[in-house]
């Protein structure tokens, strides 16, 4: 049933000055990296990517960057406090290939780390480009190390790893390696650039899109994308490049809560 399940916050991890991960006991069944949950704090409800799927401990985690009223309210909660969770929703990342490049920008690392941990458990070689504004905003570095994936960091100010855009590092990495697939989540302007790069390299790739959602279950139409009309909450949020080619609004604009279009900066 599409009804929030009330769960206690089991653990809160301070990932960076702006990001916290909230861990919940959860009977993990078929949750897939790239899927999202609707998070209800009894005041509002928002979609958030699943950042941890642990089928052994039966835990899931949601990582949230504090950027506004809702996220600030959730950041002020403590271990033992309750939230409502419904989901999982949407189509996650398809895991295939023997060597994969994963590119995460900012809080877009949330589904990427879940993907990385599952793919490495399957014996797949994963290289991760983790991009952030500065070194203390780089997310999940120790989890990436523990997974056995190769971590390539990238910061806007050069305080860790490559100095510059994650897409520049991705282009350099792609020119030096043979990958079977690329997966990515991050700011749309970054993904749009990465999309153009992987098209040039003719590598299959999957991108996780973000759109304003209300119902999360495929009815309200708030997250439908031009020109195909697909629902990001059901047909997405993860799309393959051949699908993204058909989504004309990708990298161009998005709709707000009333449906008014806004250009993507």
């Amino acid at each position, binding site marked *: 049933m599409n*009804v*929030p399940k009330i769960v206690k916050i089991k653990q809160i991890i301070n990932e960076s000055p702006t990001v916290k991960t909230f861990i919940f006991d959860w009977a993990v069944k078929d949750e897939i990296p790239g899927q999202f949950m609707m998070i209800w704090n009894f005041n509002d409800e928002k979609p958030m990517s699943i950042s941890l799927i642990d089928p052994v401990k039966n835990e899931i985690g949601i990582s949230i960057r504090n950027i506004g009223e809702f996220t600030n309210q959730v950041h002020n909660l403590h271990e033992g406090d309750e939230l409502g969770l419904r989901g999982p929703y949407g189509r996650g990342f398809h895991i295939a290939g023997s060597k994969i490049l994963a590119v995460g920008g900012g809080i877009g690392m949330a589904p990427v780390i879940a993907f990385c941990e599952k793919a490495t458990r399957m014996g797949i070689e994963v290289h991760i480009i983790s991009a952030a504004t500065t070194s203390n905003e780089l997310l999940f570095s120790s989890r990436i190390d523990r997974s056995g994936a190769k971590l390539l960091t990238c910061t806007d100010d050069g305080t860790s790893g490559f100095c510059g855009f994650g897409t520049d590092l991705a282009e350099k990495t792609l020119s030096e390696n043979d990958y079977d697939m690329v997966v990515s989540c991050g700011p749309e302007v970054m993904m749009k650039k990465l999309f153009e790069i992987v098209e040039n390299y003719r590598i299959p790739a999957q991108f996780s899109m973000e759109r304003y959602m*209300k119902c999360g*279950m495929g009815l309200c*139409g708030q997250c439908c994308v*031009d020109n195909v009309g697909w*629902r990001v909450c059901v047909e997405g949020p993860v799309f393959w490049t051949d699908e993204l080619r058909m989504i004309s609004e990708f990298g161009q604009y998005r709709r707000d809560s*009333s449906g008014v279009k806004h250009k993507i900066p």
Partner: protein
Amino acid sequence: MLEIELCGIKMRSPTMLAAGILGSAASSLNWAGRSGAGAVVTKSFGLNPNKGYANPTTVEVTGGIINAIGLSNPGVANFKLELEKLDKSVPAIASLYGANQYEFSEIASEVENLVDAIELNVSCPHAMGGCGSAIGQDPHLTADMVRTVKKSVKIPVFVKLTPNVTDIVEIAQYAEDAGADALTMINSVGPGMKIDVETGIPILKNRFGGLSGPAIKPIAIRCVFDVFESVDIPIIGVGGIGDHNDVLEFVYAGARCVQIGTSIMYEGMDIFTKINNGLRRFMDEKGYGSLDEMVGIAHD
């Protein structure tokens, strides 16, 4: 075999996308058309952009969902830009809401040349500000809306009725007398509520919302059945349709065609093709050549 004509509008199948479901953008309306819908109805829009209610706006209950989206829409000026992008593969119907007849007629005039018909939403069970069922529960107000809009446009005007009235037949007759070209029935039922048992908190931010889905189908069938005997204009059946047997029930009760909404959550956009195929198979087996032969046979 499935083709029908409704108020002069030719439809290749009797299944429409219902208002309020995936109809905020031309792209999703076009997708429904490509997927087998015989016509598409937009999400209701008004004069100005409206954010609707805060989340949660939707929650599942036994037999369907309750929703209080709150008529979110980008306003008529923005919506016209969407309507201009309709691919015209199937007829399009603009669902409108307003607080009074002047708002309704102004919006209707704005979009008249972009759509094939107008559907007046006077039946949303959770609208504020005198919109929605506040109008549709009053036969005189309903008639005022219809009369004014009919004067302002030349395309057919449908009226979507609420079941939440003492006598839906009376409202239907007032709408017909005021000039309505067809009746769409029913809008969601209630409003209803769902309360979280752990916390005691109503789940919808608006606390209550309209019930739709399989649970309301028997009510919708009865409404169609009752009104069919009392009016001469066509009826568009809506409420809990999930397969072709549900469509048949509506048609037998007196509906000329149907709209599909909540079931898209369970079946996706494929539902239109599935229902159309089911209807075709059924009609083949029973020897029906057209849907018109089946309309209202439960009354015989």
